[in-house]
Every structure is written in C-alpha cells, then in structure tokens.
C-alpha cells in the first residue's frame, strides 16, 4: 500500500494551485456566475496551453496521456477554487465518453480539438422522466444518411457553450449515443436559473438531423458505454467535492482562530472545536475513498461498486461539511459577498449530480446481493 501521491501528482497540484491562485480569484468566480457564458475564454485557452484539457487524452490524440489520479488531483484544485470553466463537462463528461465510445476516426476528429480547447463537449444524463439510461425518452429515428433526434434533456451542464452535446437516445436497436451539434437546426438550448453556481441547461431536440458519423460507437450499445465511463465520472465529481470540502474546512479553521467573542477565539469553544473535528472526520474518509477509485481506474480494475460507494459517501459528507462550515461562520457566512455560499451552493449541486447518496446506496445494496 502507498497512500502518498507520486512526484508528478504533487507537482501538478502545486502548479495548479499556483495557477488558480493568480488566475482564478473569487472575484472572477462571482463575475462568472453572473456572466451569460459562465467562463473566461482567455483562462480556458491558458488551461489548454498547460495541457490540462488533454490531461487524460492519449498522446496519440494530442493529449498528455496521464492517469486518473492526475485527473483527481487537478479536479480537487478545480473544486477548491470553484473553477468557472467547462472543464468537468468537456474533459470528463465529453472526453471520457468519446474515449470510451468513439470510433478511431471520431477520436481523431474530436480529441485533439478538445485538448486544444477548440471544441467544448458535454454529455446529457437527465430528462424530465429521470436520470441515467432508464429515464431516456428521447428518440433517434433512422433517417436518410443518419438519424433524427427528438426529445428534451435537462440539467445539461454547459450545453449553452458546448460545440457538441452527447445525447443518449432510444434507437430501434436500443440506447445509442449521439453527437449533437449545438448549432444544428432544431436544437433549443436554454439556461436554467439555478442556485448551483455552474451553468445548467435544458436542451430541446426537435427532429435534429445527425449524420451517420454522429452516432458514437454502435447504436444499441449506449448503456455499455455509459456504464463504462460512469465510475470515472463519479470519481471525478468526488475529487471536485473533496477539494471544495477541504477549502470549507480551511476557511472555517481560519475564521475560528481569528474571530473573537467573549474574549477568546471562537475556535477555543468546545462546540466550535467539535464542529471542526466532525468536518475533518468526514473529509478524511472522502479523501481516500476517492483516491482509491482513481487508483482502481488507473490499474484498469473494475470499480463500479467502489465508485458508487465513493459517491454515496461524498454526497452526504460534503453536505455535512458545508453545513458545519456554515454553523462555524454563522451570519457572516450567509452574506452574498462571503466565499462560504459559493461552496454551500455547490455542495448541493454536487450532492445531486450523477445520483445522490440514496441512489448509490441502492447500487451498493444490489452489489451486496440484497
């Protein structure tokens, strides 16, 4: 066993933290929440230049060919800084799905663009009827030289700025994945007004024409592809949550040391000490259960259950940490100009993203033969 990060990972963390400290102040995060696009293209381009967008893209496709632990380290920092950019959408949801489902030519076409920041991708996993494959009512009907897609997608992150939206849809052969050009006729993309801090969209597809080349992998195998990519998506979300949770604990500790009431720092009161200790306990578990999934992915070992375990735990743990952080800060942490609400709101968004604790407990129960 080895619970330490490799040298490359430690360096990546340092680089990322330095970069984001200077390039991603909270002022920018707040501006981007109000911004229509939600990200600064200049920052995005710098991230591309640093190789981050192609971090896990194989070198053959213009990426750095690094592993999931590296991705976890980077996403941890993204979570810590509330990075306002379509990193998760494009690199994790888009990139990993292309890598899992795309043909050689689709990979050749899309991955280099993705790595260079010239194309932004995202993936839709919810519809009004529900989440994941069981909820898909969108249909893909065979048409001349391709497919015609109709349906409604919900909570599609960053769809409004994506070049391509990967859409699961029902084909005569079963579920397929389709690359939908956001600017194609029949695509209506609307920003949803949310409290989540990132950009969530509804996407209505009305007889959208997708060419044969736009079907990702084999139609009918959509569930296989998604099942394959999902452990990495869950791990990536847990890593982002881990970074956010770390920052909440750190800012709570700072405040508890500095804020004086009744003639002493509030961090000397047992109630506040226990709040902080409970945050540390919840956080510590989150850290290693997340890294473990990343390591399993790097080893190419099956980890669907481990990923469900991690997300089940992370969903509740980050909520608990955000809550305790709010209790330590009291009123000041409830004001719009404070950093805490940035995390408090994201904690809820992350909790419900890709299934909450309840959803993943059910998967764990199934795996245990219950």
């Amino acid at each position, binding site marked *: 066993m080895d619970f330490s990060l490799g040298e490359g990972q430690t360096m990546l963390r340092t680089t990322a933290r330095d970069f984001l400290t200077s390039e991603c102040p909270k002022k920018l995060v707040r501006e981007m929440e109000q911004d229509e696009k939600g990200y600064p293209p200049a920052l995005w381009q710098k991230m591309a230049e640093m190789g981050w967008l192609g971090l896990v893209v194989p070198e053959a496709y213009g990426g750095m060919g690094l592993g999931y632990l590296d991705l976890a380290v980077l996403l941890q920092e993204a979570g810590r800084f509330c990075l306002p950019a379509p990193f998760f959408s494009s690199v994790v949801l888009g990139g990993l799905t292309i890598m899992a489902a795309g043909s050689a030519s689709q990979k050749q076409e899309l991955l280099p663009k993705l790595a260079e920041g010239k194309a932004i991708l995202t993936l839709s996993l*919810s519809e*009004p009827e*529900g*989440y994941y494959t069981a909820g898909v009512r969108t249909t893909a009907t065979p048409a001349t030289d391709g497919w015609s897609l109709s349906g409604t997608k*919900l*909570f599609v992150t960053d769809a409004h700025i994506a070049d391509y939206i990967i859409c699961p849809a029902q084909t005569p052969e079963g579920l397929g994945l389709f690359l939908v050009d956001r600017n194609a006729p029949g695509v209506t993309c*609307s920003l*949803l*007004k*949310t*409290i*989540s801090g990132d950009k*969530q969209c*509804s996407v209505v597809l009305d007889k959208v024409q997708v060419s044969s080349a736009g079907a990702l992998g084999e139609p009918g195998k959509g569930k296989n592809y998604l099942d394959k990519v999902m452990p990495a998506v869950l791990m990536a979300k847990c890593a982002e949550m881990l970074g956010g949770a770390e920052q909440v604990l750190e800012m709570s500790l700072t405040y508890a040391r500095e804020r*004086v*009431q*009744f*003639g002493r720092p*509030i961090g000397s*009161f047992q*109630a*506040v000490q226990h709040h902080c200790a409970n945050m540390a306990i919840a956080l510590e578990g989150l850290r290693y259960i997340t890294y473990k999934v990343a390591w399993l992915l790097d080893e190419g070992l099956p980890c669907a259950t481990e990923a469900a375990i991690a997300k089940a735990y992370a969903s509740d743990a980050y909520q608990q940490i955000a*809550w305790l952080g*709010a*209790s330590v800060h*009291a*009123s000041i*942490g*409830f*004001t*719009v*100009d*404070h950093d805490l*609400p940035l995390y*408090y*709101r994201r904690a*809820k*968004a992350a909790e*419900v*993203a890709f299934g*909450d604790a*309840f959803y993943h407990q059910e998967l764990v129960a199934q795996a245990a033969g219950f």
Partner: protein
Amino acid sequence: MDFRFTAEQEHFRQEVRAFLEEQLKAGIFKPQVNAWTHGYGPELARRTATRGWIGLTWPKEYGGGGKGYLERVIFTEEFLRCGAPMDFMIGDRQVGPTLLAFGTEAQKRFFLPRIVRGEIRFCIGMSEPQAGSDLSAVKTRAAADGDSFIINGQKLWTSAAHVSDYVYLLARTNPDTAIPAARTLSDFIVDLKLPGITIVPVVDMTGGHMWNEVFFDSVRVPGSALVGQKDRGFYQHMAILDHERSGMERLMGNYPLLTAISRYVRDTHVAGAPLCQKEWVRHLLADLLVKYEVGKSLIYRVAWLIDQKDDSAAGRIELTRSTCIAKAFGTRYEQALDKAAARILGPGTLLAEGAEWAPLAGMASLAYLYSPAHTTQAGTHEILLNVIATRGLGLPAR
C-alpha cells in the same frame, strides 16, 4: 390540563383567517416564504391595525388589545400560514413589551399608540461586527452631552433597517473599561431620519435584502431617547429576549413549504404511482408531521406560560428554559423540513424561483439557501443550547 382553544379564540382565528383571505383577494399582499422576515407591507399593517390586532397583548390604555399571548399565537399562526408580511412584528413583539416594562410614561404614550396604529416600524440595533453572540462586546458609543447623547459606531445584521422608522439601539454609555462590559450598555430609541445615520444593505446568499449595516456618525439624540435605566441596557435586553424566542416563527415560517411538498408527493407520479407511496417518502414526511405537532405543543405552552405572568425567579427561569427549548426545537424542525424537501426534489432543488421546470415554484431552493441562517437569528443554536444548560438546567457556566 386543557389542549383546546376557547370558543372565542377559535372565533378569533376564523376572523384573522377571513381578514387575510380578503386582503389577499384585494391584492394587498403577495404570499411569500419567509414573509415574516423579508416581507414589507405597510398597507396590510394599517389594515391589520384597524382591526386592533397590533399590540394585541398590551394594556388597553395604550391602545392595546388587552388579550393574552395565546391570542397572539393564533394571530401569528394565521399570518405565517399564508405567508403574509409582518413588518410590524418588531414593534409588536419586542419594542412594545420593552417599553411597557422599562419605558417612561411619555415614551409609552408616544410610541405605543403609533405602533398599534401600524404607523411606525422598528428595527433592532444589537449586533456589531465584533459583537455577535457576545453582546457585551458592543462598541457603539453614546456619550452624554448635556441633556443629549452623541452616538458613534456601527451596527450589523440590522434586519429591515431600510424600511424602518426607528432603531432600538444598544450602545455603550460608560467608557470605563474596568467595569464589566454588561454594566456599561444602555437602550435607546433612535429616529432613523436623524442626520449622521447611514444605512448600507447587506445582501444575503439568496440575493435577498433583509440585513443592513447601520452607521452612526455623531448622531445627536435627546435624553428622552434613553429607554429604562442608564447602563442597564444589557439586562433589559436579556429580560425581554424571551419574547423574541417565543413565537411560532421558527415552526411555521416555512409552513408554505410543508404544504407544497405534501401536495407534491401526492400529485407527482413516478413509474405510475404517487411519490408518497414510496416508503422512504412516507416516513420522511410523517416524521415531519410528528415533529410539527410536538413543536406546536411547545409553542402553545410558552404562550400559556407568558399569560401566567409568574414573575418569581423560578418562573422566569422556567420561561427562559421553555422559550429556548421551543426555539431550538423549531429551528431543527425547519432544517429537517428544508432537508426533506431537498431530498425529495433531488436536482429539482437547484432550480430557483422563476426557472423553467422548477418544482414548488423554486420554494425548496430558497429554503435550502436560508436553512443555515435560521440557526443564527436571536442567538446561534450553540448559544441557545448554552442558555438551556446553564440558566435552564442549572449547570455551572464554568
């Protein structure tokens, strides 16, 4: 024992309910979650006043209704039930009782009838940047200058200052640092239109504006602005704090959300069956209903206890213990409700008021955002537990 309201009280409830339905129909107010903290409705206040319902518990000689606190609870319950604004509440709940206990005859004659008529609104100027849980750290200074006082300093978290006429202010009247801080503070009623007062909004994470910073720059007030004894403000404040903690607000502040989520689980079908047939949903909501009933009994009892007017030391301890318990229980209930709604709605909780697809018109997202703030008003939850343990249960403070 008797757990029934009298026929008169039931009748009064119907009266209030009918009144509110009428005002709602007439467009006098718009129902709103958290209306009792964020709402502003001077016209509704005036109309309420004409029914004699502001200052309901005060003596008739000052224009009050001469009724009990049980009537006041009924009144509040109905307002909260339909999300009506209660911008007269600070005057009604705190300033009035304080003046009745500590004010001069002139102050009573001036302020009480105006509150009762719904003409003036108050805010409370207690907290400061360095004085949150610890009120004895208040630094705002009121220096005697002949017959008047000169006020300098800053208040924070002053709810509704921007729509109020007066601030009920806690300020230092004795600069001697050798004296325990609690014996250096006094209460004032300060007209917010006086020169030298600046009100700056503090926007909360919902984007809402309830809180303010209030700056005092050499504000001169007459000696008659002093309420009660000089240097006894801290103790006067403590004596009246039970009134702030005693109401239905915690338990029913979120009542529209309870109604909405109950309706939602009955009306929403998942895989052909109403959501409320899922076992976990049933138990989550049943647990809330159980706690709601328990919480109501605690609050009704506090109102009854105030009406007993037991001013013995034991009686006062019992009141503090009971009000703090009721508030702590209500706060937890409200947080449990917020969490339950969020869990049932899942990603729908993220959708804000006005968003397409938003369930419960975005009510649950607002409740999630407000939830941590509920613990801090009128004393953080931790302070409340301290008070229950030390004053209420007699455990040693140190």
